């Protein structure tokens, strides 16, 4: 595979497009975006093209910020079913919270290129828990065709509560909450006196490294992303702040979030939800509905969308389908959907803000990273696709294994030489 050589970052003006900023506002016609030195300089309907800029006429097309996946495992996994290629969890590791996914992120993994081709430029990458309720420290990455994928390493800690947490804690929710509190108290013990921390005896719940890693979680320096689904569990997690007031919670999943949306909003906790889950697929999701996101947004909860159940390593491109279906709900009596601009926000600026990176990525506001996508049509329609993608102002390649397979087999019959010679 030939490595992509990025074009030199220059001042670029994209003109004439239907332009969506990604901040929740509705798209405008005939907008212009200017990118320089890797950042957005300006975006809007009346923006002038700077002298000397390379101008790209995007008339008839759409322009958005690059999509930000609110929950993914991109770059951690090549083929989920092939364990050698799957670094998302470590069931036999003695460690838990200390696990740091940064060195495992592979920017050359094929799902990275496939997601980039679909307009995804950044992703929240979440480790998966296996032997313990704590999974480790996740990262925010970019999907650029280069060897430097990390936007922010050790960006958050991930913990399983609810049914998954109960199972990992020994079989019940009470055991999970007890384990959570006991572990955080051990982390506090470690923080007070690292040298005397007992991390090796049978009584210790945390290895020394894990206790150290949870320190920033207890004191609020590092956000804690909690996977939880039911309304009851959401309230129990919010209540953890009574014992640990500094916790910076982010809820992931929250299928029944709409039932306790007022409490989530009052707690000012961001939520990353699945969007299209509407089946009582478990007893903690009995009230699942596609209106979950819309109802939470209406209640004032900052909501992002991500992939919660599967495909999170491969199908980041489903973000546009999730968002488009949120818009479709507006035409269904009794359902609560999102406006187009709000829907785009859930897959751009909202996840960036949830992760504390709202000042750097996620929208086409001046000063943000030059993550820009030109689409051949409405990006929330399934027939549309990107025609150009920039990350940090660098134009990206839009080919991948799948486009090459497509081209090779456009006609299945071999020519004068076998198909293996068509590349």
């Amino acid at each position, binding site marked *: 595979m030939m490595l992509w050589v990025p074009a030199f970052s220059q001042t670029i003006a994209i003109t004439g497009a239907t332009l969506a900023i990604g901040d929740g506002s509705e798209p405008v016609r005939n907008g212009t975006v200017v990118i320089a030195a890797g950042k957005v300089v300006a975006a809007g309907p009346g923006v002038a093209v700077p002298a000397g800029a390379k101008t790209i006429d995007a008339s008839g097309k759409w322009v958005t910020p690059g999509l930000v996946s609110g929950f993914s495992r991109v770059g951690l996994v*090549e*083929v*989920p*079913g*092939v364990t050698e290629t799957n670094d998302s969890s470590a069931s036999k590791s003695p460690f838990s919270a200390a696990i740091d996914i940064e060195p495992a992120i592979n920017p050359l993994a*094929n*799902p990275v290129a*496939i997601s980039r081709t679909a307009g995804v430029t950044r992703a929240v990458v979440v480790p998966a828990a296996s032997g313990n309720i704590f999974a480790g420290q996740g990262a925010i990455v970019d999907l650029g065709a280069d060897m430097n994928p990390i936007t922010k390493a050790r960006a958050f800690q991930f913990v399983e509560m609810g049914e998954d947490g109960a199972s990992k804690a020994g079989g019940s929710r009470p055991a999970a909450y007890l384990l959570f509190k006991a572990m955080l108290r051990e982390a506090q013990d470690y923080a007070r006196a690292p040298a005397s921390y007992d991390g090796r005896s049978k009584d210790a719940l945390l290895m020394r490294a894990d206790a150290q890693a949870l320190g920033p979680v207890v004191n609020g320096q590092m956000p804690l992303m909690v996977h939880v689904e039911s*309304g009851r569990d959401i309230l129990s997690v919010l209540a953890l702040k009574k014992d640990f007031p500094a916790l910076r919670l982010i809820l992931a999943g929250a299928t*029944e979030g709409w*039932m306790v949306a007022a409490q989530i909003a009052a707690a000012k906790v961001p939520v990353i939800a699945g969007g*299209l*889950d*509407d*089946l*009582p*697929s*478990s*007893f903690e*999701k*009995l*009230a*699942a*509905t*596609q*209106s979950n996101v819309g109802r939470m947004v209406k209640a004032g909860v900052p909501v992002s969308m991500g992939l919660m159940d*599967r*495909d999170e390593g*491969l*199908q980041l*491109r489903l973000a*546009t*389908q999730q968002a*488009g*279906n949120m*818009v*479709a*709900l507006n*035409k*269904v*009596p*009794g*359902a609560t959907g999102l406006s187009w601009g709000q829907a785009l926000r859930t897959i751009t600026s909202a996840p960036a803000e949830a992760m504390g990176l709202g000042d750097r990525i996620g929208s086409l506001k001046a000063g943000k990273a030059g993550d820009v996508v030109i689409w*051949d049509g409405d990006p*929330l*329609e*399934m*027939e*549309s*696709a990107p025609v150009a993608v920039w990350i940090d102002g660098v134009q990206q390649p839009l080919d991948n*294994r*799948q486009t090459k*397979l*497509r081209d090779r*087999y*456009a006609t*299945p*019959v071999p020519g004068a030489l076998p198909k293996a010679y068509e590349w």
Partner: protein
Amino acid sequence: MKGRSIALAIALVACASGTMAAKKNEDAPRSNPSAEPENPYPSTYQPYPGVATAIRGATIFDGEGGRIDNGIVFLSGGKIVSVGGPDTPIPADIAIFDGTGKFVTPGVIDIHSHLGDYPSPSVAALSDGNEATAPVTAHVWAEHSIWPQDAGFGRALANGGVTSLQILPGSANLFGGRGVTLKNVPARTMQGMKFPGAPSSLKMACGENPKRVYGARNREPATRMGNMAVNRQTWIKAREYQKKRAAAQPQTRDLGLETLADVLEGKILVHNHCYRADEMANVIDMGKGFGYKVTAFHHAVESYKIADLLKENGICSAMWGDWYGFKMEAYDGIKENLPLVHNAGACAIVHSDDENGIQRLNQEAAKAIGAGRRMGINILDEIAWTWLAINPARAMGIAEQTGSLKVGKMADVVLWNGNPFSTYTRPEKVWIDGALLYDANDPRRRPVSDFELGQIGAGDVK
């Protein structure tokens, strides 16, 4: 089963020639304690009452590739009475819906579902989709696992416009068992959903699942060559069984071999889970060797590599819009699979194999349409709708009853509130056999399964 009645007819012919053996044989089914009626779990499905209804002014995709702008669809007595342009005559005193700006299609048909067998909630107590206890379980019938109270049926109706679906056993086994076709109506029993007259199917599986499941238990098959060997040995047994049965020779009744004998006699359709092009080619030749034909390869992510071979052999491919890479045999999945297969003149079908995907098969098709157009394969919307309607109906053996908006067929119809290939569109009304079973504007026309009744969230729009 029809197979048994033909065997009996042959026995009667033999009887006419005067042999005592044949006479005994004639009486055998009645005296044999293992005997069953010919159709032991018959459909009890009855169409729900509908009223004569017309939809006027909508764009119609007829499911066979036809399109009528500003059309009229007229349903009465559970059947499609007429389909045509704005001048199509309709009675004055019937329910008429304004379809201006909307679209009408035949109901979506999912050829690959596990609803009821892997229901929601997906707890172990309800997991009944895979009889993963032996690589050959041709004797099990998926219909005996179906829990009609799976909320997934209602979601497939309300969000997906799905009116018929085939429930297959899972893919742990080489021979997974029989599949069954259902009308997507809420019912107290599986039989209340069973599509009248639909043929049975046989689920087979290639590749990684059987070899993983049984290899992990240190038993055959542990490899792809093991898969093929066990398949072939099983077909040899089935051939012998079928020959004896056809000749009315006495033998102990065997449920699995009975199913396979029916396949060999063309009465049961083979639906073969198979991802890779090279494996599909092996299976095609295995079928030729033993005298059966695969009706459709399912999950056929590499069909685009052998679209010519599939066309030549008249085999359908049931495919996802964009699934790829979740296991090694899915690694070469591409979004252009459907359009490439279609463009080569082979039969293309969109399938779900998923309780969420079944709610948006129209959007899966849209992904493929867009990908095809970008590579220069411009498939019209009304043509692409065949992937969701007549093609699966044919592959399930129900095309004479449903799968398109043709006069005399079951009135299985969806009124969409916009172009059904748009993400922004949802079903507005769904009729099954002319009965209005979903209406987005009527909270009472929304199924709430027994499982959901009285639970939080029951009756929500979903």
